């Protein structure tokens, strides 16, 4: 009897109903509005963090991108230049534009990581004057936004004499070949008199690589010898290359 009375009193009483309703509404709002908003904000924040990290990686890649660029004429009277790009970083580099003075050439050149590549001939007929002379500055733009100038800048072109270069004391060795396959070239630069070997380096050209350039910086003026061998056979030999401050640079062209 007591139990029945207590039970009915409890069911019949409305005291505390508002608390229950209020709690239900509060929980409903919490689970359908506040918590989803909280999760959404967290997701957006992680989206932002991801963007920051990804762009930081891109910037790091851009900073780590390191290439050496050499622009060189095919021979002393050529009206075209080649651009040789040596990639010093472990990931591949895409060259997308070549600048010669104020002229832009769209060009796509892929240079593999720690590898090198060379462009086709870049025709400068429209830039080189029919008479007089001109200074040529070359630079390339990479897809990551780096702009790298040629290490042999500036080149001088004279309609009467052809190409020459100045700047640091150096001997630039250009190797061209008209066949495919693997060839090993040895470049040896020696100072006449002291016998000091400035450079003794093997270079291997593989596949259909047509051209290669090597800049050998020299410690002082004087007389030097340059010997280039292809697969053990001498293909170029000159023992009286005069390097002076008036003529600080000498170009060696080897065609095989």
């Amino acid at each position: 009897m007591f139990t029945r009375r207590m039970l009915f009193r409890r069911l019949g009483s409305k005291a505390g109903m508002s608390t229950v309703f209020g709690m239900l509404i509060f929980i409903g709002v919490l689970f359908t509005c506040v918590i989803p908003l909280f999760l959404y904000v967290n997701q957006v924040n992680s989206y932002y963090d991801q963007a920051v990290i990804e762009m930081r990686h891109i910037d790091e890649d851009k900073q780590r991108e390191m290439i050496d660029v050499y622009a060189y004429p095919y021979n002393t009277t050529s009206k075209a230049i080649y651009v040789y790009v040596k990639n010093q970083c472990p990931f591949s580099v895409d060259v997308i534009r070549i600048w010669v003075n104020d002229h832009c050439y769209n060009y796509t050149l892929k240079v593999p990581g720690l590898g090198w590549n060379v462009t086709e001939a870049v025709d400068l007929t429209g830039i080189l004057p029919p008479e007089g002379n001109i200074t040529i500055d070359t630079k390339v733009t990479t897809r990551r936004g780096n702009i790298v100038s040629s290490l042999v800048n500036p080149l001088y072109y004279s309609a009467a004499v052809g190409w020459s270069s100045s700047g640091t004391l150096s001997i630039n060795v250009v190797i061209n070949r008209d066949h495919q396959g693997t060839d090993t070239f040895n470049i040896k630069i020696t100072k006449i008199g002291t016998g000091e070997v400035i450079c003794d380096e093997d270079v291997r050209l593989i596949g259909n690589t047509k051209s290669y350039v090597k800049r050998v910086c020299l410690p002082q003026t004087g007389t030097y010898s340059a010997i280039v061998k292809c697969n053990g056979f001498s293909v170029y030999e000159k023992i009286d290359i005069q390097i002076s401050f008036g003529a600080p640079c000498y170009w060696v062209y080897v065609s095989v």
Partner: protein
Amino acid sequence: MKLFTNRKGLTPVVATVILCGVVLTIGISVWSFTYNISSVLGDDYYEGVQKRIDVICERFTIEHISYNSRINELYVWIFNYGNAGIDVMYGNLNINVDVYVFKDGERIGSNTASTLISCGGFIRIFVSLSTSLSPGNELVVEVISRRENVVYQTYVVPSAWL
């Protein structure tokens, strides 16, 4: 029939129904208000973050500058490398830029046309100068994007190429 004519106990029932209705109405209103507010807050927050992402993902550089002494104009080539040519989620942005040219701290030219540069594209922007330049003059070129990123480049007027 006695069942329908007897109104004893009807008032508490009606009161309870009204009370429940009022409570439910207020509850749904509160929930609806909160839901809308949270949705608006969420959208605003997302848009704000997206704008911040666009700002930090914008990448451009001054690729080349040249000076035309005949018409006293400076040409500025700007490269938008935002996509960097690789597979990124965030960098594919078009940009709008203004160019300002300063000499000795004084502005001598500008192009404020908010020139559009598409993602991965580059464009030449002309800047007419108020003073003529001579070889050796040093300029500061400032490029400001609409998202307020800034790139500076110095430029020394060269002697003629010839």
